[in-house]
């Protein structure tokens, strides 16, 4: 099952390249625009649009399922610390994460997801070894 999913994903030549036109779901419905960059966050890929908005991969049309996620142990301490510094800097500058699809919103989403997975998974492992 997993190998089939991987095969389909590779055949679809995903993700799209910079400069390609992509469609995605936004709060106002479906939108089409030019992709500026695809960047890995701590957990999933973000698609950065020409106007600066940041769209998580699962909202991009044609995103293969199941979606690819980074394993928690792939994230280096340095990468996490840099992310934490950026977040504190953005918050300190008065930026508000309650602005959907903006960089602070996107990065804080990923950081909370990553931190939750990291420590929740550790909790599960402790529970397993205790049983």
């Amino acid at each position, binding site marked *: 099952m*997993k190998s089939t*999913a991987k095969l389909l994903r590779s055949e679809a030549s995903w993700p799209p390249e910079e400069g390609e036109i992509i469609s995605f779901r936004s709060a106002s419905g479906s939108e089409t625009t030019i992709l500026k960059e695809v960047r890995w966050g701590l957990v999933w890929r973000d698609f950065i649009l020409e106007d600066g908005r940041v769209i998580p991969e699962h909202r991009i049309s044609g995103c293969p399922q199941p979606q690819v996620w980074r394993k928690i142990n792939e994230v280096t301490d340095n990468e996490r610390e840099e992310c*934490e510094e950026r977040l504190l800097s953005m*918050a300190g500058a008065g930026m508000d994460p*309650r602005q959907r699809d903006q960089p602070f*919103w996107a990065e*804080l*989403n990923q950081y909370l*997801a990553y931190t939750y997975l990291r420590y929740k998974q550790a909790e599960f492992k402790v529970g397993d070894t205790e049983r």
Partner: protein
Amino acid sequence: MSRSDEETEEQQVWRVLSEAGLVEIRLDEFAKKIEDVKRIVIVRLRELLDFNTSIKERESAAYSLGTLKGLELKLLANAPKPPDPSEM
């Protein structure tokens, strides 16, 4: 066969994050989600202290907790203020 046996690792991550409401956090829920994640880190940090595990892991958890607390305080400070009744 259990549900976790049927799921791929990727599907499991999606489910865990979706159930925690962390795939796409609603705009009015950031403070609550930071609080939820903080609670998870605190539980883990207590375990790490109890089990006398590696200092690095403990420091990392403590640092994450500090970051979450810092974000929480700054978000609260930046939160839109409710209208002052005396000005109405």
